[in-house]
């Protein structure tokens, strides 16, 4: 009977105050107390649901339509979620029809903003509208031209390259659902790439991650994006060359970008 909720002498100094990790759960033998065990299962269920459910595109279309930028919808070559999860290569390529649809619209704008489901529909449902609105406001204030918004499903980050290339945009801003963690299944990321084209290496992108209620706020994230865009237009560089800017805004980025800490996983 060692459930910490009962309280012991040691609990006078609570490890739980120091980290969000699941410390001091208590135990019964090797078992986690029932409530903590089910709370873990619920978080996992939420994370899986975020991966496997679909963005509410109709509602997104309606809300983003108010920005009066025009909207175009495209899809990758991954035909469904099961294919998307197994075949990241297909999620980085435009479907033939989508490529045709875009080819008719060469915008030549400074910026294209893309909203992609990535690995979390919840992240897009929860954050995309206010985030895109905040980014658009800041870009327009800087007198930059913006192509029609692109909504894209079954998409990986690199799908932005052929989209931006076709639209002849100088900078690609992709808002994408991040791989859900247990603590947050609704975290969005923004990847910004200067002069994107098919085959652009990931090292040429900058990212701002962990955008969600309880994580990085919408306004801070949008400020970060606007600042990256300004730096890129000034220097003509994106990616590792802009590392200082990255470090300011990306302290909480996961190990994908953190050197040798872990083997790379291309979740996005």
């Amino acid at each position: 009977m060692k459930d910490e909720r009962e309280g012991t002498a040691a609990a006078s100094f609570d490890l739980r105050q120091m980290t969000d990790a699941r410390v001091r759960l208590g135990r019964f033998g090797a078992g986690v107390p029932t409530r903590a065990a089910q709370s873990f299962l619920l978080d996992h269920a939420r994370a899986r649901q975020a991966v496997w459910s679909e963005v509410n595109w109709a509602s997104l279309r309606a809300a983003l339509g108010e920005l009066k930028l025009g909207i175009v919808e495209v899809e990758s070559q991954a035909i469904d979620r099961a294919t998307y999860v197994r075949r990241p290569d297909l999620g980085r390529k435009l479907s033939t029809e989508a490529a045709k649809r875009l080819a008719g619209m060469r915008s030549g704008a400074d910026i294209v903003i893309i909203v992609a489901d990535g690995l979390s529909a919840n992240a897009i449902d929860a954050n995309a509208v206010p985030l895109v609105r905040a980014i658009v406001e800041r870009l327009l204030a800087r007198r930059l031209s913006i192509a029609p918004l692109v909504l894209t499903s079954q998409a990986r980050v690199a799908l932005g390259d052929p989209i931006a290339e076709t639209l002849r945009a100088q900078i690609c801003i992709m808002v994408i659902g991040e791989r859900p963690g247990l603590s947050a299944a609704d975290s969005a990321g923004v990847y910004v790439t200067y002069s994107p084209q098919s085959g652009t290496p990931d090292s040429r992108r900058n990212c701002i991650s962990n955008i969600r209620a309880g994580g990085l706020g919408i306004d801070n994230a949008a400020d970060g994006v606007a600042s990256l865009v300004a730096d890129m237009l000034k220097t003509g560089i994106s990616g590792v060359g802009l590392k200082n800017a990255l470090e300011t805004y990306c302290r909480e980025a996961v190990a994908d970008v953190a050197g040798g800490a872990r083997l790379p996983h291309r979740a996005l």
Partner: protein
Amino acid sequence: MPYKTTIEGTVFGFADLKDLMAKATPERSGDQLAGIAADGPVERLAAQMALADLPLKTFLAEELIPADTDDVSRLIMDRHDPIAFAIVSSLTVGEFREWLLKPETGQRQLEAVAPGLTPEMVAAVSKIMRLQDLISVASKREVVTTFRSTIGLKGRLSTRNQPNHPTDDSYGIAASAIDGLLMGSGDAVIGVNPATDTVDDYVRIVSLLDDLRSRLSIPTQTCCLGHVTTALKAVMADAPVDLVFQSIAGSQKANEGFGVSLALLKEAHEAVRGLHRGPADANLMYFETGQGAALSAEANFGVDQQTMEVRAYAVAREFSPLLINTVVGFIGPEYLFNGKQIIRAGLEDHFCGKLLGLPMGVDVCYTNHADADQEDMDALLTLLCAANVNFVITVPGSDDVMLNYQSLAHHDAVYCRETLKRPPAPEFERWLVEIGLTDRAGRLLEEVPRLANYMANARLPGA
């Protein structure tokens, strides 16, 4: 050279050895992603039958990745010991499997043959072994390494206590480490994956872990799993570096993708030895690997991901590591799709590592986009204990709040000790009794105020 086999009048052809190896590999998403997997179960079995008939010697004659252009292939050839190989040199892959399974083949024989085996031979035989085969052979092979604790003794299980924190906060790391120690985890290493990769943070992290270890007199090692170049700078600055860590893979190009070379690893190994923090014969390196790492770096050269993984062990072997673990379910469902694939890969990696003489551990884990859950991890952990795995990784409540994936919980270490009867390293087992965390039978007791109160009195660097 092309290979073929005939099943009931149908001829199955394979272009070369790497095609044969890829098609003989039990189903996994990474080989399908690479476009090198068998079309279906019958073609796979045809490849496995052709592979079973292949003389082991073939692997010395036909290269999968040419040594002219790849230093891992060169290392494998240079280190191959023909005298040790003589024990099995007349066997086919299928006969080698049978030799491994025989009761007469025990620790002595497996130890003797190890320098004669190449990663490709070991990968090949694993492809025609079922889970039970992988477990029963691996369980015969004891690989023991030492520093402050003795890891890998038969019938024991060590743990890496992994107190990660999303911003590397000193108190957050220490609190998580204490949580693990209270559950008896950490005799293999207390090791942090840093969120940042600066020298200052590296030095701060190893300093706070070393302070915790020395003040509580814990017979274990500590490690910050930053990049080897960061570790080298910390060693130069005389920071308390017990172990140098690095992620490694099975080809020169994949290792270049990690920013490492064999020469750099050698330099780091010599540098950390110069600190004299352990006994003269202490093992000082810690490596992580994982199926799919080479493909994700586009450095697999058409070779299947499991063979590439075992080639990484040839790199590890060169530096006599204290610890090496596969991060089996971490790399994602595009490489190992579901619980079944993760479980098999974990047991393959462990078997192959042990056969090559490595102190193999496993991060029993999965990500949220894989079709796997904690019950798959229960199964893999239990099977790995039967296979005599050297160590596993545990985190608070299975939830790594920095790397955003699920590993084992510290609770699972209690399960291994109390249900599966796998005590930790003997030095650590004694420490647990001395400090009052367990009774003499190894059962976890009530709270130990000295440990829980460490935090109240600690003055942590950088906090």
